[in-house]
């Protein structure tokens, strides 16, 4: 008996005496590499659309700058640049003509190297390579780079971040192991990171390394006819969207890293970091479904199409959410258009993420229902209406429209100081002209809030938003028809003069786009005429009084 207890006790003792967990080894058979993850770094998911970064790891907690007010969670990335001949790549560009249709394979030039990648993607400050030397990782040649990041644009003299990177030449591709940390802590991680780089090894790949070119999509340009998707029925488009969403959901499920789970609720697939409690995840799912229902009840009239749902990803921290959202350029853009990323904010609660989720859902809904209208909203509706939806808060099983406290504070302050413009000015303002300031945005929010709440009880104001959106939709459709006609005419002209169609058509397009703003502004004026045309000066005055009164009373 005694003898059998001794080893167990000893084991327990050793386990406590050595609190440092063993270094984990990360193996990626798909991309054929392995390395030892430094202690306290955890793998986080990589965006589904990402094409260059194949693995990301975050330190257990964010670190605060010692001199500048700055915060950052140390991060490790593995980035791959497959090698290829640009000429081979260009041969794979496909441009085929099928009668009146031209199918162009949409391929983007891949990044040629790490420097180009950083130049186009790094956005945390200015940077330069302070040190560069040739080295070896295993038997492979490598280049070590120490990159210093500055915040000169923010008026700081100090180096804020340090990036250490090893570009390892693995014959058919360059693998980059990149580590980034606040400059104040760089020395603390130096040994661990160096060890990690030394442990970087190639293992046999289970899949052939894909060059980024193999993932291209295609676009179909059809002259004289409506686009392929425009000729389909709403039901057909719905089926297509559902299929697309299912593909994304499937990808989201299969690429979930360790420590994540998922569940379905209504039209949403909820992905959650297991460190986020179930109660919070359920609350998110419930609110998402309520907002979705609200959107259907209040905005179904804006288009004949169907909104199909989304993927909601709940991260454990802001750092994890940011690392996930941060996707390199020249990646795909499909999953992102259907995915909403939020996180559990343990410091400031759900308010900000609730807003982010609502806005994400509204954007998804509006884009599915009527993309054309969604992209054409005037500034007062684009800001105010979407803000209003963002501010819907769940109480029990109901949604309450409640402006954010910060917005309310500005609102009350400006009301007190009588700093708001006349409502007429806000409603008639155009992009880039006299509509710019924070005041205007807050005022738009207030007007929309009023129209969607207390204003609904007022006969004169009840239908302002539906009427405006309806008119705008009609006009935009008309404009689209004109655009197609203009394109067709350009093509015919080009054929007549036997010119190379590409150049002239481009010129036509450019000319059309420059006139677009003019046309759009004209449309806004027509909408105003139709919706507010019968309003007298007195009506506008009353409207100003009414919306302000609604907020003064709270």
């Amino acid at each position, binding site marked *: 008996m005694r003898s059998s207890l001794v080893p167990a006790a000893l084991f327990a003792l050793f386990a406590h005496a050595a609190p440092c967990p063993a270094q984990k080894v990360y193996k990626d058979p798909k991309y054929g590499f392995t390395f030892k993850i430094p202690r306290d770094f955890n793998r986080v998911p990589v965006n589904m659309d990402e094409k260059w970064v194949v693995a990301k790891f975050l330190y257990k907690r964010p670190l605060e700058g010692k001199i500048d007010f700055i915060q950052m969670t140390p991060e490790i990335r593995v980035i791959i640049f497959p090698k290829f001949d*640009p*000429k081979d*790549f*260009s*041969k794979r*560009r496909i*441009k085929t003509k099928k009668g009146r249709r031209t199918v162009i394979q949409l391929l983007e*030039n891949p990044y040629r190297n790490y420097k180009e990648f*950083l*130049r186009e993607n790094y*956005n945390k*400050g*200015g*940077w*330069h*390579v*302070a*040190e560069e030397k040739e080295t070896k990782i295993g038997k492979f040649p490598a280049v070590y780079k120490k990159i210093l990041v*500055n*915040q*000169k*644009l923010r*008026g*700081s*003299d100090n180096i804020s971040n340090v990036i250490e990177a090893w570009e390892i030449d693995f014959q058919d591709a360059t693998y980059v192991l990149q580590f980034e940390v606040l400059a104040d802590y760089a020395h603390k991680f130096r040994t661990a990171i160096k060890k990690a780089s030394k442990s970087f090894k190639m293992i046999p790949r289970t899949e052939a390394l894909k060059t980024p070119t193999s993932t291209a999509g295609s676009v179909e340009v059809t002259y004289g006819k409506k686009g392929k998707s425009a000729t389909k029925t709403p039901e057909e488009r719905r089926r297509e969207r559902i299929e697309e969403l299912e593909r994304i959901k499937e990808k989201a499920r299969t690429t979930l890293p360790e420590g994540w789970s998922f569940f379905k609720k209504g039209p949403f697939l909820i992905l959650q970091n297991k460190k986020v409690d179930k109660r919070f995840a359920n609350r998110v799912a419930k609110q998402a479904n309520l907002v979705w229902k609200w959107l259907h009840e209040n905005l179904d009239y804006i288009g004949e199409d169907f909104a199909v749902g989304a993927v909601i990803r709940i991260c454990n921290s802001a750092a994890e959410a940011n690392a996930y959202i941060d996707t390199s350029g020249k990646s795909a853009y499909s999953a992102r258009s259907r995915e909403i990323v939020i996180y559990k904010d343990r410091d400031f609660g759900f308010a900000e993420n609730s807003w982010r989720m609502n806005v994400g859902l509204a954007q998804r809904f509006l884009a599915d229902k009527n993309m054309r209208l969604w992209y054409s909203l005037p500034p007062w509706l684009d800001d105010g209406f979407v803000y209003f939806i963002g501010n819907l808060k769940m109480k029990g099983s109901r949604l309450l429209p409640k402006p954010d406290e910060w917005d309310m504070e500005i609102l009350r302050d400006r009301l007190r100081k009588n700093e708001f413009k006349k409502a007429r000015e806000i409603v008639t303002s155009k992009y*880039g*002209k*006299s509509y*710019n*300031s924070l005041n205007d945005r807050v005022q738009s929010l207030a007007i929309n809030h009023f129209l969607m709440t207390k204003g609904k009880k007022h006969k004169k104001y009840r239908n302002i938003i539906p009427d405006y959106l309806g008119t705008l939709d009609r006009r935009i459709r008309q404009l689209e028809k004109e655009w197609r006609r203009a394109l067709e005419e350009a093509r015919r002209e080009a054929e007549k*003069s*036997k*010119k*190379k169609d590409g*150049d*002239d058509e481009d*010129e036509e397009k*450019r*000319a059309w*786009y*420059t006139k677009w703003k*003019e046309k759009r502004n004209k449309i806004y004026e027509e909408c105003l005429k139709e919706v507010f045309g019968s309003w007298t000066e007195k009506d506008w005055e009353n409207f100003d009084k009414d919306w302000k009164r609604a907020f003064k009373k709270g």
Partner: protein
Amino acid sequence: MKNLLSASTLLGLALLLPASLPAGPRAVVSLRLQDGAGKKTPPQRPGPGMISLKDGRFILEKPIRKVKGGLEVLYRNGKVLVPDSMILDYYSPDTTLQYTPKNEIERKRLAKGLVPIGRRWVRKSLAEREMRKLTEKRKKEIEEQKAHRLWRNRYIVETKDFIFEHNLPLPLFKELRELFEVYLKTFLKKWRKKPHLPRKPRINLYADHGDYSQISGAKGGIVGWYHPMTQELHLYWDRRDPKFTINVLFHETNHLLSDMINGDFRYPDWIEEPMAEYYGASKWNPRAKDKTKRMTMGHVQASRLAVVKTQIKEGEKLKLKDMLRIPDFGAVHYAWGWTFIHFLMNSKKYAKRWEKYYLDLAHKKTIRRKPLYGKVKTVTPETAEKLLLKYLRVKSLDALEKEWYAYIDSLEIEDVDGYAAAGRHFRMLGEWKEAKKYLKKAVDLGVKNPYAYMAYADLLGTSGKDRKEAIRLLDKAISLDPLEAEFRYRKGRLLLTFHDDKRKQEGLRLVRLAAEMNPEDWTYIHAVADIEEEMKREDRKNG
């Protein structure tokens, strides 16, 4: 028989060399001497050399040959002549020159194996040894110049008034440094205020836009910036448009200089930015003998004027009252603001009054200011408006506005560079007719910027007379900057629109040459692949 000598170090050699030898660029010059019998040695393919250009570009590892008027770079798809005026330095392991003996004595000396150095004739072996040393030295110097392009090896130069950090070619930097010094003097003389900044301003000059945006962190359309907290200025050299670079430099440096004399006061945007624009339109003539006349102010900002004229045409005049209250002062407002300041500074009636207003806003103690951030203060739009009326002695903004609009109507673009700038700007705005009008004027007046020719060629059609004219314009652009691949590419593309094989083949050659000259830009590589593919398809079709 091959003798190598250096022109730059072995003094006096120039006396013996033909007049066509580069006077500007320092170069390793080698001599190929004719043998006594006067037989010419057969031409050899030169080895890979290097050229360092005055605008900061380098041509590396390409065979180069010295020819009359410059250097020839031998690409696989054609030769490109780089004129002496563009070259800063070059190195070629075997550039050769013919030395023809002038008389019988020289012929005899050559036959004996002697080589002319200065006024002396020395043994060939001695000259060769000297030449090898110099060749190596020159090679190293060019490599060093290239290494200085890396920001970690940048030059740091401290002068009496500024600290410069840069990775520019040294002669170019020297010119810019002088510009900064003259600008400072001119500015201080004008406003008669003593400069006081907590520290010496640091001026960062980057060799190109890529370095600038990467290192300074500027994104989007920011073409230069000054930060009042660090007193740092960040600018880059745009070799494609030096005039524009100088404009930006004058503009951004104005923020620094204004900061120097105005301390903790910040002007409202409608004064700060247009004043910088006013100075931004200054011209710089480094060749003027009188140093004080190298910088001239108050010229017309052609591209800004183009914006304002377009807006007026579209019936979108900016109200003066609105301008004084714009919270986010954008590019369009810069243009309107510049016309306003230009109007005031050029008006006999208002110039002095405006200058007093400008200084008093920042310095007069009795003016009420509001805190902006930290110690820094500004004035409210209401105060600025009230004082503007008081200082200019006008009754209302409307009256002033009328005069201002009338002044804008009278403004005209004043020179060839202005026409080019306006034309290119109109082109960017999609105003083809206006763009054509101004670019044609610029081209007719012989503008020096090759991109103006390209822009005009771009606006012309691709058939008949237009096409021929476009090719002529692109040829002109090529002659002004023979190393710009884009011009060859565009000319190649145009030639490909013809139906005869000869022109098509020439078009393909030019596109290939562009791809070879600038392999970094994949547009050309893709274009070559596309054209080759298309030609093959046509060949198959024609049997």
